[in-house]
């Protein structure tokens, strides 16, 4: 269990985020993105491609989960400065994914105290599907504590 009052330091773990992937949200995202790729909503198209018939979650949703995790920890959605990830696998409808992060560096810059974090998203019972690193400016009102 993390210590809510401990100061952030190298090695501090970001509170993890777990999400159950809902195919109905993929349909909303496909519409918001004007994304015609049928693997996100059309099970017949998936079968024709020889894929699992569960729709494949959009990449922006997967990376958005990690950004949400970082924003909640750092003190708001306006705290993200940089976010860099590599997509390593698919997340399917019904999967439970878990986002994790760990502070690897800290520095002060004109925007405040900036934490660099390694981040990853894994399918529970499966593989890491997204990994990379991010920078967030920590909330001077107490956000970003472990």
């Amino acid at each position, binding site marked *: 269990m993390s210590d809510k009052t401990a100061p952030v330091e190298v090695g501090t773990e970001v509170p993890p985020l777990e999400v159950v992937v809902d195919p109905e949200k993929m349909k909303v995202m496909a519409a918001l993105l004007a994304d*015609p790729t049928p693997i996100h909503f059309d099970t017949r198209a998936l079968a024709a491609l020889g894929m699992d018939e569960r729709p494949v979650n959009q990449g922006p*949703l997967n990376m958005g989960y990690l950004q949400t995790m970082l924003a909640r920890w750092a003190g708001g959605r306006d705290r993200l400065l940089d976010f860099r990830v590599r997509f390593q696998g698919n997340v399917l409808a019904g999967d439970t994914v878990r986002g994790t992060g760990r502070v690897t560096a800290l520095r002060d810059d004109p925007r405040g105290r900036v934490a660099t974090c390694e981040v990853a998203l894994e399918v529970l019972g499966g593989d890491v599907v997204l990994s990379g690193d991010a920078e967030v400016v920590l909330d001077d009102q107490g956000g970003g504590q472990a």
Partner: protein
Amino acid sequence: MSDQEDQRPVPRDDYSDLVGREFPGGSYTVEPWRTWLVADALLDDPWDETPHPVLAWMAGVAGMGMTWDDLFAWFDARATDGPVFGEHRTTLHRSLEQGATYDVSGRIVSVDRKVGRRAGAFDVVGYELDLHHGGDHVARCYNSIVFPRRNA
């Protein structure tokens, strides 16, 4: 083979001539309903009026001035080929603001043909998108798309 299959575009061996090609560009407004729906799709708080940072990339692709099908067609690919993301980077120089309209520009920055043992041949296409507001550079998003080339 169906008529549709007969009409499939035939991929070229090399698309490096497209590196540097600019998107038409355009603009994107972070409307409150977009902030709400994006947060809800992410199972985040839809009543938080601060736009979710994933909207930087969404603003870029929505304002790049062409559709996904248009972009896929530059590389003789289609949505039904199963293109997927490779890598992504978002750099935010300023926070996004609900209600703000961002000018969008972007370009193709790389194209690489690769061959995997299991995946076979595929092209990795990198592109970047810039958001500007009131003369300020607000964000840059880099993304790569992997196009399967099953018959290459």
